[in-house]
Every structure is written in C-alpha cells, then in structure tokens.
C-alpha cells in the first residue's frame, strides 16, 4: 500500500469524523448511508480464507480469491469468487452482478460439469456460499429499506461507535431479510460496522457479526476494508470467519473478467 494512499485515507477519515468531533451527531439515516457507501470500493482483489466452524469447534477451510468491481452507478458491484481449496471444489467459481433495484444475476461454474450455470435468484436471507453470512449481509440492502434510530455511542474494540437500531420499513423487507431488527455499531472514524447484531423474526438474537483489523484500501473517497470478519450464529453455535491473507486495491478489473466465459477459465 502506498504512503500516499494511507495519507489520503487518514485525511478523509479526519474529514469524516469532523462533524462528530464538533459535537453534533449525524442522524441515524446519515450514519447508515455513510456505512452503505463505505463498502463501495472501486476495485479490489482479496485473497481470503473462509473458515466454517461448527458448535463442536470442527473447522472446514476454503481458500478463495475474490475480485470486486464497483459499477458506474457507484452503488452496485460485480463480484467474482474463485475457490482454490479444498481440492474437490478447486476451480469452482461464483459470479454475482448486483442490481440495487432488482434481482441480482448469479452464475456458478462447476469444473466437474465444465460449464457455468445461472442460478435462480436467491433470497437475501439465504446463506452465502454455505456460510453464516446471508447474501443480504454481504451486499448491504438499500438504506431506506430500514428505519434507523441512533441509540447511543459506545466503544467497541477501542473504537468509538454509533449504535444504530434498524427495523425493516416494510413487511416485505422483513420477510425477505429474515430479520426483525438489526443493531449496528458503526465506527465514527471509518463508518464501517465494527459489530452488528441480527434478530430473527421471533425477535431472538440470531447472529452477531464482528469486524477487525480495518485496513485503508482507497483514497478519495477513503475506504477501508476489514481484514477479519466473523459471523456467529447464536442459535446454532456455527461460525464463519473470513481472514484476508492479501489485499490489493485499484486493480485492473476489466468487465470481461465478470462474464460466464471468464468464469469458466479455471
């Protein structure tokens, strides 16, 4: 990471925190909009290890290379996940083209079948590639799908955070997300979520997401990316940990990388 990028990131962070430091807290809606935008990075290539841990602490690991590119609308991304381990799914790849106002397009490539297949649109509450994250947890929904309320400020992992409660604005959002409520701890410096609690439709705590080791990855606008992300399902005891092994931002990601033909290139 270049020094310039780090400096730029820090400047932006300082700018972002200025209103907070000045004493007037942004509104809950504003906080969540900034949080939404904080995840939008122009392009990124991330080498990750995804660990699926059962309640009995048995672990399965998947090694992936993820390529992300923000689309011109500045909101939707294209996402390519290619699996490198374990051996029996090596070469398997998943492609998602987000559409904020409609269903996302998804394809999967299975090397054993030697062709990519389109997936019928998943529900936002479905598990993301067999992890404890749902598709809705990975690609954040529109901010106005929820009604937000600033509860308080709190320190999480030595970072000052806004604590925002978000309740689905409509029954449809509630049903589609599978959540009756979310409580997010949004860092005041980066607007990235440090922690999120998800409550199921019976208002019981379902999952808790935590992030750590936030790394600046883009300046102007400044963006950070957590090198560690964990989602723990409190009802099943199952957890998914995503650790970043290497991260590269501003990578060349031509659109033809996000096609089914590219998907089939193992």
């Amino acid at each position, binding site marked *: 990471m270049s020094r310039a990028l780090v400096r730029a990131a820090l400047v932006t962070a300082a700018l972002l925190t200025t209103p907070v430091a000045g004493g007037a807290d942004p509104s809950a809606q504003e906080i969540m909009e900034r949080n939404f935008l904080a995840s939008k990075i122009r392009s990124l290539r991330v080498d990750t290890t995804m660990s699926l841990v059962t309640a009995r602490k048995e672990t399965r690991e998947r090694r992936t290379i993820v390529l992300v590119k923000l689309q011109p609308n500045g909101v939707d991304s294209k996402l390519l996940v290619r699996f490198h381990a374990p051996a*029996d799914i090596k070469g398997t790849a998943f492609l998602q083209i987000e559409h904020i106002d409609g269903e996302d397009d998804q394809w999967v490539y299975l090397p054993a079948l030697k062709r990519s297949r*389109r997936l019928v649109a998943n529900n936002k509450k479905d598990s993301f590639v067999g992890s404890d994250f749902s598709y809705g947890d990975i690609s954040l929904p529109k901010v106005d799908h929820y009604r937000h309320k600033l509860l308080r400020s709190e320190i999480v992992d030595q970072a000052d955070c806004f604590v925002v409660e978000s309740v689905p604005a409509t029954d449809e959002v509630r049903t589609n997300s599978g959540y009756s409520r979310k409580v997010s701890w949004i860092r005041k410096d980066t607007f990235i979520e440090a922690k999120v609690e998800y409550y199921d439709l019976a208002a019981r705590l379902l999952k808790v997401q935590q992030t750590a080791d936030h790394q600046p990855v883009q300046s102007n606008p400044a963006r950070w990316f957590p090198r560690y992300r964990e989602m723990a399902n409190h009802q099943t005891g199952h957890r998914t940990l995503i650790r970043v092994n290497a991260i590269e931002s501003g990578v060349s990601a031509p659109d033809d990388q996000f096609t089914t033909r590219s998907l089939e290139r193992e």
Partner: protein
Amino acid sequence: MPLSSRLLRPFAEWIIARRVWVLLAVVGVTVFLLTRIGSLQLDTNPDSWAPQKHPYVETTRLLKEVFGGTNVVLIGITPRQGDIYQPAVLAKIKRIQERIEQIPHAVRHNVLSLAAHKVKHIKGGADGMEVRPMLDPVPQSPAEIERLRAAVASMPIYVNALVSPDGRSAAIIADFKQDETIPNFVAMLESMRKVVEEERDGSVDIRYGGTPVIGEAADLQFMKMPIFFGSALLVIMLIQLWSFRSLQGMVLPMVTGILSVIWGLGSMAVLGVHMDPLNTTTPILVLAVAAGHAIQILKRYYEEYGRLLSIGMTPAQANRAAVVESMVRVGPVMITAGLIAAITLFSLAGTGIPMVQHFGVFAGCGVLATLVLELTVIPALRSMLRPPKARETANERKAGLVDRLLVRIADNLVGGRAPRLVAGGLVALAIVGAGTVFLRVDNNFRLYHKPDSVLRVDDRILNATFGGTNTIQFLVQAPARDSLKDPKVLQGISDLQAFLDRQPNVGKTQSIADLIKRMNQAMHGDDPAYYAIPESRELIAQYLFLYSLSGDPQDFDSLVDNDYRRAVVWTFFKDDSTTYADTVAKKAQAVAAKSFPPGVTVSMGGTLPDAVALNEVIVGDKFRNMAQMALVVFVLGAIAFGSLAGGLFVVTPLVAVALANFGVMGWLGTPLDISAMISAALAIGIGADYEIYLLYRFREELARTGDVLAATRDSLLTSGKAVLFVAISIIGGYSVLQFSDFAFFNQISNMVMATMAVSAFFALFFLRALMMIFKPAFIFGRNPQAFFRPAAPATPGANE
C-alpha cells in the same frame, strides 16, 4: 454363649439405659433424611439403563455428541377432512415447527417437518438445481398448493417420513436433549406438549409416538408409586395385625420398615442420586425386608416375655428383660442374615448397568438401615412402651390353624415323609423350571401399556401412517476427512438402505445418499434415471457446493458431520421389539461388511439398540451376576454356619426361586426384562433370610431339647411361623401392584409373589425335609442318629 451374643447383651442393656438419647438421635437422623427426600427426582434417562461399555451404547453416545440427541418424538397431524395440503393445516405445522425450535432443550437442527428451514425442495431446471425451503411461505392459492404437493412428491427422502404416502397426514419429528437436572421424559416433553396441544382443535387429530413418549407414559406410572407404596403399607399392617393380634405387633415392625425406607431414600437424596424406575419399587422391598426381621425379633420378644413372666418376673421387669433376651437370641441371626443380604446386594454394584448398581447399593443400604434400627430404636422404644397385656400375649400365643398346620408338617417331616416331600418338591420344581426353555428376552416398553391405551392406539396409527415410530441410527464412519464424498462409500450407504427398506417392519430410511441422488437427478433435468450416486467424487463435492449456494451450513447436520467422515442412516421401525431390531441389525452388519470399501465401519446406536444392549446384559450378565450372588451367599452362609453344607442350605432357596421364576415366565410367555432384576434381588434379600432364621432356631432348639421332633415343631412354630407371616405380608404388600394398569408393575408383583411363595415353601418344607434326609453335621453334629428317637407327644404352643 457365642461371642456375638456376649457382645449383644451389654449393648442391648446400654441401649435400654440410654433409650431417650437413642430415640432422639434416631429421630434427629430421620428428620434430617426426611427433609432431603423432597429433593429426590425421578430419573429415567435411558443412559442409566444402558450398559455403558456396550458397543451400541458407545455408538449412541457418539451419535449424541456428533449429531445431537437421540430422543426422537414423532408428532402426527391428520386433518379430519381432506389432506394436509390446506393453508390452515400447513400453517399449523409451521407454527408447531417454529415453537418447538424455540424450546431450549430441543435439538434444533433435528426438528424436522415440511416447515423446517432445512427441509428443502431440490428442483431440477434448465440450469441445474434450485434449492428452496419447502414451506416458505405457506402456500395459499390452489396453484401454490399444487406446486407444494408436486415438490413433496419429488423428494423421496421426505415421503413416509414427513408426509404420509397418501398425503393425509404430516409429521413433525422432534429431537430433544435430556435435561441433566430433571432427567425424566415427562419434563422433557412438557414444553413440546404445551406447544402442540395449543394447535389441537376440531379440524385435526394429533398423535404422539416414539421412545420418549413411551418413556413419558412409563414415568407417569412410576410417579404413581407412592400411592401403591401407601396401599402396600396398609395391607402389610393389616396382615401384621392378623398375625400378632395386637396394635403394637402391627405398629412396631412398620416403624422399622418405614424408618428404613426413609433412611434409604434420604441417603439417596443426600448422595445426589436420582430415583429411577427400578428403584421406585425398592421402598416396598426395603419395607418387606425390614418387616421380616422385625417380625422375627418381635415374635421372639413375645416368647421371651411369656417365659420370663412364667418364672415370676413382674411385667415391667419381664418387658425389659425380654427386649434384651430377644435381641441376644435373634440379634446374631438377624445380623448374619442382614449382612449376607446387604453384601450380596452391594455386589450388584459390579454390574455394567448404572440403574442396577444404584438398586444394589440402595437396597443394601436399606437392609443395613434395618439392622441399625432394629438394634437401636426398636429395643429403646419397646422398653419405653407398656408391657403387653396378658390378653395380647395370650392372643399372640394362641394356637390357630397355622400352628396346627405347622405341627402337622413337623410330624410328617420327622415321621419319615421327608423323602416324599423332597421328591414332590423336585417334581414341581422340574415342571415349573421346564418353562425356562421357552424363556425369551425382550424389553418392549410399549407393551407394558394396555392395548387400548392412548399411547398404543396412537402408536399403531402412526406406524400405519408413517415409516415408524422407533428409530435405529446406523453410524457410518470413514477413515479420512471427506471420505463420505467418495461414490463407493455413498453407494455402500445406499445399498445398506436398500437392504433395510426390504425388511418387514422397517418403514423408512434416510441418509445423505438420498439427497446426493436427488441432486444428481435435479442436475439432469429431474430425469428419474439419474436418481443415483454420481460416479465422480469431485462432482459430488461440487453438487454439495452448489447446494450450499442457497442452502444453509447446517442443512445436513442430522445426516453427516462437518468433516464428511461420519454419516447416519436413520432407520424407522414400526415395532420396538428389541429382539427383532437386533436380528435386523445383525443382518445389516453382514450387508455393510460387503457394501463398503475397506476402512469404513458401520455401527448402530439409538434408543432401540440401547435396549438391545440392555437385553444382552440381562441375558449374559444377569445369569453371571446371579451365579456370582449365589456364590457370595454360599460363602457367607458357609462361614456363618462353619460348614459347606450350611452354605448349600442357605443358597438352595435362591437357586430354586430363580428356576421357578424363570420357569413361570417361560410358561406364561412373559419376556425376561429389567423387572426380573427385582425378583432376583428380593430372592437374595429375603429368601436366604428365611433359611438362616430357621436353621439357627432349629439348632438352638435341638441343643435345648435334644429332640428332633420337638426342635422341628418349635422352630416351625416360632421362626417358621414368622417366615410364613413375612411371606404373606410381602405377598399382600406387592399384590396391590396388581391394580396398576401398567404391566411393568403387574410383572414385578407376579414375580415377587411367586418368589415369596417359593422361598417360604422351600424354607418351611423342602429344606427341612432335606435336613431330615441328609442330617448335616453342622446341625446334628457327628452323631446325628442320637437325635432321632421316637416322637414325644406335643401340643402346638407348648414349646416354651
């Protein structure tokens, strides 16, 4: 005077001198133990039945650890009109599913119904498979309903398991963990019943089945035990009243009995051990044993009291002296008999079944409590009470029908009829004992309930509707991680299922192989020809990956572990006979040995296999344990009488009782099950006592009179009469269990009554006859013939 008597006299005098303190101490201990009894809980955790080192039980433990509980309940929902494909019925199923999932001890990932999030429709399409929860949301329109019907039909894994083949009934299969703090089935199912019963209305029939439901029904019966205990107490007291014809005679043995029970139960509570089904009848056993000893001492007390009065003592003097004398005379015999029983019962602690271990320890503790109480509180109390009135003593000593009968027997025994009695006894025993040929072992807990009970009616209907209410889990274990993605292993599972599916009474099997086959079919446009295991391991792994793109990480948790090293084949049986389950399991092992590649092992577990394991222990270990217990009794008896023949005399009733009991069970077709343990323990606890009391008394009377006939008459009229009353008391006490509509209790009652009758017969007649024939040296000395003189005239009751 033997050493034990020399020690007992000063001890008895010491107790009488400090009787108030003794009473206060006993009251203090009793009050303390009584306050602890409230914390006793009924524990019907199957783990306490199961022999922990048996391979089936070990597999069950592993299954619980890896896949959750094994307490599977089947809840059947049948609409009174139409089939289950109605929005209102489906909504009911969904509500029940969601609310059972919220029960803290429900194994959430093993709660399955059409409404479970993990019960998904794997659908084929142009681009492969689509995976969707089956009932999310609940369909409303006729078109949606038809889609659901087609979806269910396309998933063979759920047909006959979650939906009946005719679509008329739906099932919710729920699995629960045993709550360690309240380990009984009533508590386990309480929340579930509350949730489900709220959905019961005029539109649906709801039925429950499965091992925990059978356990729950049994627990409810076990909880009625205090009523039976109270009734038994009443019956025993009435028999005592008839026997002693005095209020004190009725009350004192009961004081010992009740205090022994309180001490035994209180000790259980103090030690933190729960009450279990086998121990629910222990209080009656302890009561009976205690009453047995108390009656022997009390009878002797009346004898001594009468004798001492006749030599000129005042009633008050005679009372205290009779307390000491009866203790000195009977105390050593009671201690010998009690210790033999206690040590033998404690030897049950060596069995592999925790429930039997607890039973042995607590029955043993109860017997020891009896000894302590009979040597402390009873003499103290007796010495404080007013001496018996002349009328009471006369009543007690009045010769009745029983006395006349006993004298006649004594005359016959001595008068040369002994060989005939022995021959008759042997023939009867041989006829009864021949029944053992037909003895079969089976622990079919369902059959303890009446055929028209709700439990059995529901069970019959559920078994006719679905795959079955009883489950066996076959655990397939492979050597390495991801081995279960190997087509050969999956094919092995599939072959094992195919074999099991062909067996009568096996209604359904489920495994991960079913889902893999369905995925393969879906990826080939739902072509039924592809409902098969794919040939490539990578393809299987990638199907599973594809599934995971819309499934949840825990979707397969009830079928395969995280490492794909262990899988379960769920097998649903329509019958809970352990014999049948074991037969199928053994055949399945042979099939498994041929079907799987090297290194893959198949074992079985679950509640039904646990019962099979228990059977093996009952058959194998029980006979070994009984032999071991008989040996202990023989050795202790031989030591007590200083003679091997003495040991033989003491152990003979046990062998006869065991033979008679099993013979009767064989003739009646009653399967040998865990309740048989109780009769064995009782035979040991009391059967040997009878013989010990009679032998000692005979020896004492022979030494006193030097006359065989007089000794025979006197011993029969004193100890023998007490034996008869004890036997009648216990038979009367246990007869109240005949009024239970729970066959487990009826069976125990039958066996105990038979045991008492046979023990009493053997002690009073058969062994006395043997004694006359063989004239053992430990009784008659080296020159037995010296005792056999012509009979002198005697009248009943003239033995003092």
